[in-house]
C-alpha cells in the first residue's frame, strides 16, 4: 500500500516507546552497521525497524528484558538485510545470507539447530513461535503474500528438521 496510517498508542505506551528508542538505538545501530557500512543506510534500517516495532508494539511486554532486546535485534537485522539486498547488484539466495551470531551451547538441541539456521528461516520461525506473529503479520513484515509466508515457514521447518537431525547425529 502506498500510504499507511499509524495511529499511535496511549500516552503511557508512547512513553514506553520513547524509552525503548533511547534504550536500544545504540544496539540497533550496531546491528545495522554490521550489514550496512554506510551510516545513512544503517540509520535508515533503524528507522524502518522502529516503524515496524511501533506497529507491533503490543508484542513487547517490557523495555529492559531479553525478549525485547532480541526482538529489536531481529527486526533491525531484517530491515538491514532488506536494504543490503536492495543495494546489491546480484541478489543472493535468501537462505545464504548471514545474520547476527547467536551464542548457543552447541549441544545439538533443537534450539541450537534453530540458531544455526539461515537468517531468513530463523527470523520467520522466531517471530512466529516466540512472538506469536500471525501469517498476516509476517506477510507484512517480510513484504510477501500470506501464501508465500506459509511456504517460507514450511521450508524453514523442513530446514530445521534437517539441521536438527544432522546436529543430533554429530552430537
Amino acid at each position, binding site marked *: 500500500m*502506498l*500510504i*499507511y*496510517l*499509524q*495511529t*499511535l498508542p496511549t*500516552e503511557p505506551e*508512547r512513553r514506553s*516507546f*520513547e524509552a525503548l*528508542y*533511547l534504550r536500544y*538505538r*545504540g*544496539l540497533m*545501530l*550496531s*546491528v545495522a*552497521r*554490521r550489514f550496512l557500512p554506510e*551510516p*545513512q543506510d544503517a*540509520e*535508515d534500517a*533503524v*528507522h524502518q525497524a*522502529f*516503524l515496524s516495532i*511501533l506497529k507491533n508494539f503490543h508484542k513487547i511486554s517490557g523495555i529492559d528484558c*531479553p*525478549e*525485547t*532486546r*532480541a*526482538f529489536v*535485534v*531481529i527486526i533491525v537485522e531484517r530491515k538491514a538485510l532488506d536494504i543490503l539486498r536492495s543495494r546489491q547488484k546480484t541478489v543472493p539466495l535468501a537462505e545464504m545470507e548471514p545474520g*547476527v*551470531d*547467536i*551464542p*548457543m551451547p552447541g549441544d545439538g*538441541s*533443537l*534450539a541450537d*539447530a*534453530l*540458531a544455526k539456521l539461515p537468517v531468513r528461516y*530463523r527470523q520467520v520461525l*522466531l517471530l*512466529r*513461535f*516466540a512472538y506469536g506473529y500471525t501469517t498476516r503479520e509476517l506477510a507484512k513484515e517480510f*513484504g510477501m503474500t500470506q501464501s508465500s509466508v506459509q511456504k517460507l515457514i514450511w521450508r524453514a*521447518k523442513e530446514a*530445521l*528438521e534437517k539441521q*536438527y*537431525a544432522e546436529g543430533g547425529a554429530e552430537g
Partner: protein
Amino acid sequence: MKLTDQQLEQAAKQVINALGSAPFAEEEQTVSPAFEEQMARLLKQRKRRKWLKRIACSAASVLLLLVIGGGLLLTFDLEAQAIAGAWYRSVSAERHTYRFTEDRRGQPLPDYEATWIPEGYRYTKTTRFKNTTRVGYRKESRYERYITPMGFEYFWISDQVTMLVHVGDYGGHTITEQPVTVNGNTAYLYEDINRWNNTRNYDLVWIDREAGLVFRLGTSLSAEETIAVAESIRPVK
C-alpha cells in the same frame, strides 16, 4: 521427524533468551554527542513549546525522524512547513511524513460520498472502522473479467495520527509527488508506477479543515479524473 508447535515454541524461546543476552561487541556505540544534544534539546522543548510537544509526544515516529541522523532535524526545520495550519509534513528522499497539530476527534465520522465518478464505476460499500471510514467503488468489465477498484477514506484531523507516504523507488514501485489543489485546499497527488506490470495508480491526500477531516483517494484513473472525483466528495445528505 516432524516438529510440533510446542517444540518449536520452546526452542524459539531458548534462542530468544540467548540472543537477548548476547554480548554485542559494539553495543556501547552510541550516536554522536551532537545527536544526543539534539535529543535533549528536543525533550526540553517539548515542555516549553506546545506545538512541538504535540508533535513530539503524539507521533513517536516523528520523534524518530527528528532524532535519527543528524541531518534529519535540519530537514525538518527547513522543509516541514505548515501546509494549511493544521498539518505539517517532513520530506525525505524515501518518505513524506504528515502530522497534524489539532485534534478534531470526538464525534462519529459523518458519511461522505463522491458525487461524480467516471462512467462504468459503481459504488460498492462503505466500511466504518473505529477511526476511519472507507468508501469503495469499482468498475467491472464483463468481457475482460477485470475489476478496477477506486476508493477514498477519511478520518478526523488528529495529533494522534502520523501519515507516511513512501516515495521514490519502493517495493517495485516508483512513486512521485506533485502539489495540486482540491476545492482550493492544498493537496498532494502521488503517482505510483508499478515497474513490474507498468500500471499507474494515483493517491491524493488533502485535508478539509472546515470539516476537520483528512482525506485520501486512491484510483487508477488519470490525474485529472482523480482530482475531479476528489472535488466531488461531499457529505451524504
